[in-house]
């Protein structure tokens, strides 16, 4: 990733990843909203797109020069603009990730795992969801576990993010048979069964975008 090799990622690399996430979210906006219409209030795509559009505007106005500062900008922007549960949840995730890599000027694979873990822990601290509550945690936790395994096996940044993205996608798909126990979908009780959770889906797309950018890095 720019100004860094595949074994680490600097601020510009994180910015490139976030821009790719914004593009992916825009692309899947309608789908995310449709998923949220099935078991929620039908705004998850709009919420996420609103948030990442604002992030892009902030980045265009000036890119921070550490990974931590980039993550913090994303956090505060999502918190202020998303407007749904995903705002404080993703916002807290990025904030905790930012704090977890505070000192680093580049992120190596272990730092990526540290950031992902802190992010997931932030979502759990904020939303109190457990595994199989049919939330974004069901994508985040497998992603964290896969990332850690990949890093421990010596994988580079792209390998770590690829592992995270793949298992997040599987985790998102695995929410389909679950009954929601947190968030709006829980109001539907057993009727939430049979639908894929919108937040777990956006988590999977987000990690997929990061992995794809890392894989394209020189």
């Amino acid at each position, binding site marked *: 990733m720019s100004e860094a090799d595949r074994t680490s990622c600097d601020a510009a690399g994180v910015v490139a990843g976030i821009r790719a996430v914004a593009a992916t979210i825009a692309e899947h906006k309608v789908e995310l909203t449709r998923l949220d219409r099935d078991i929620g*209030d039908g*705004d998850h795509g709009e*919420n996420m797109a609103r948030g990442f559009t604002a992030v892009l505007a902030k980045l265009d106005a000036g890119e921070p020069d550490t990974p931590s500062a980039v993550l913090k900008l994303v956090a505060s922007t999502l*918190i*202020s603009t*998303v*407007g*749904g*549960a995903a*705002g*404080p*949840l993703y*916002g*807290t995730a990025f904030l905790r990730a930012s704090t977890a890599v505070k000192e680093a000027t580049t992120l190596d694979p272990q730092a990526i795992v540290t950031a992902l873990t802190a992010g997931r822990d932030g979502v759990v601290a*904020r*939303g109190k969801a457990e595994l199989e509550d049919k939330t974004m945690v069901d994508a985040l936790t497998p992603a964290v576990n896969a990332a850690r395994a990949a890093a421990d096996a010596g994988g580079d940044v792209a390998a770590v993010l690829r592992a995270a993205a793949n298992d997040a996608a599987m985790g998102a798909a695995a929410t389909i048979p679950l009954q929601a126990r947190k*968030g*709006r979908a829980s109001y539907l009780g057993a009727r939430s069964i049979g639908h894929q959770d919108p937040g777990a889906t956006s988590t999977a797309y987000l990690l997929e975008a990061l992995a794809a950018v890392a894989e394209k890095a020189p």
Partner: protein
Amino acid sequence: MTVGIVLVSHSAQLAAGLAEVAAQMAPNVAICPAGGLEDGAIGTSFDLIAAAIERADTGDGAILLYDLGSGYLTAETAVEFLEDEQRARVVIVDAPFVLAAVSASIAANVGSDLRGVVDAALQARTANGPGGVRSVDELV
């Protein structure tokens, strides 16, 4: 001294309407609606909540009430962003939105301290409407 009330809602109209109803019996209290997004869309806004906390807490503290779950998440995030000193006197209360707003506003209006206002809001959890539960009596 007066404790302030922040009404966190997904709808600007809902928050404003509730503030107007609660203010009837509590004219001296800062009852601050924080409803909807800044452009009026449905959702909860960190920035509107943070601004409402600033208006509601004049030094004696404030309580935040919210309409639905994701309002809690945004409210909690806004409270976490406060300075430690202020955060110590800002409390989110999980209680029926409308009745708790009225009950807490009345308590604040008569000069109750933060604890008293929280208790008034919590009482709304067990309050019974007049006439009890018509529906249950008739349908069981």
